[in-house]
């Protein structure tokens, strides 16, 4: 059996390339920062969602579109509220990620990631259905005035197209994405747990 000291000598003889110049810009540009990669879409999503209701309000109240029904006002209120709540939730998730301390002891660090992924797993289970339900409730109320007085064929086509797409997006596309995401999160959590147990066993 190879003596450990021999391995140590071998290790210490290996000299990695010397760092002659250090370009911070290049390092930050090239680095595959996993956390930043997860955080960026959350922040962009949160900002986009936050701005969306302003656009809806502008369309309904400040553009040339004339919509006066009470149901339309209620729909705008529901859509704005739902989208803003989603924006805050996305921001909250972003902040949860931001707070993961990269400098903490490994066991603590792993625990923080595990908590984050457990939160995400729960979140995708309840958040998406609720968001979908209320957003479509708002959209349904909005369409009441928009389609009023239009030919029945137009109304039926619009309803069929909208409902068809939404049902497909939710029950087929959404379910598939959700299952894939749940599987991915479970795999990550299992791996984190495995490493955490290695550390616990050593304590």
């Amino acid at each position: 059996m190879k003596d450990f000291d021999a391995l140590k000598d071998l290790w210490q003889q290996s000299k990695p390339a010397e760092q002659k110049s250090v370009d911070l810009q290049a390092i930050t540009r090239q680095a595959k920062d996993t956390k930043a990669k997860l955080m960026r879409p959350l922040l962009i999503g949160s900002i986009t969602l936050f701005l969306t209701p302003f656009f809806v309000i502008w369309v309904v109240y400040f553009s040339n579109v004339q919509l006066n029904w009470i149901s339309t006002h209620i729909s705008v209120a529901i859509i704005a509220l739902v989208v803003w709540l989603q924006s805050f939730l996305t921001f909250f998730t972003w902040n949860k990620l931001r707070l993961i301390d990269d400098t903490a002891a490994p066991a603590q660090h792993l625990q923080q990631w595990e908590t984050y992924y457990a939160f995400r797993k729960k979140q995708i289970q309840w958040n998406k259905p609720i968001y979908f339900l209320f957003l479509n409730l708002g959209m349904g109320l909005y369409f009441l005035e928009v389609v009023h007085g239009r030919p029945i064929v137009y109304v039926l086509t619009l309803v069929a197209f909208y409902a068809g797409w939404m049902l497909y997006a939710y029950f087929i596309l959404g379910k598939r994405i959700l299952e894939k995401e749940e599987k991915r999160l479970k795999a990550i959590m299992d791996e984190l747990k495995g490493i955490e147990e290695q550390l616990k066993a050593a304590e």
Partner: protein
Amino acid sequence: MKQEEQFTALYKQYAPGIRKLCLGYTGDAMLAEDLLQESFVKMWKNMDKFRGDAAWSTWIYRIAANTCLTHLRKKNEQFVDADEERLAMIPDEARNKEQEVQLLYKCISKLAETDRLIITLVLEDKPYEEIADITGITENNLRVKIHRIKKQLSEIYSSYERL
């Protein structure tokens, strides 16, 4: 000293050791380079949090250890067929030191995740006290663990060498 100058100095001082740590963890040079860069980006972003409670070395190695341990999703990419790998590792009479070092990296990457980090720090001749600070494992438990990992690594290396 300006933060950027300090970063540059720390990079020059610690990047070689961190690179070896990442190489030991992944057994893959390209992946190790990614983890090295990611560790230093995290270090740059957290430099304002450094209070001097621990040495720079401990702090930087801890960030690198965390980066390695949470690098999970791509981990499966490095798993290649064991037989194929063994064939690739058949010792050549003309094998030079560098190949032996590469074999050592591969052998380390066969250990459990936390063991890879611990043994790499041991090979780097870090004092046990510092390894305990980096990993958050008590010194006494660490000694027991290191004893076991040393034995395991020697066995793995010898098994490859015999081929």
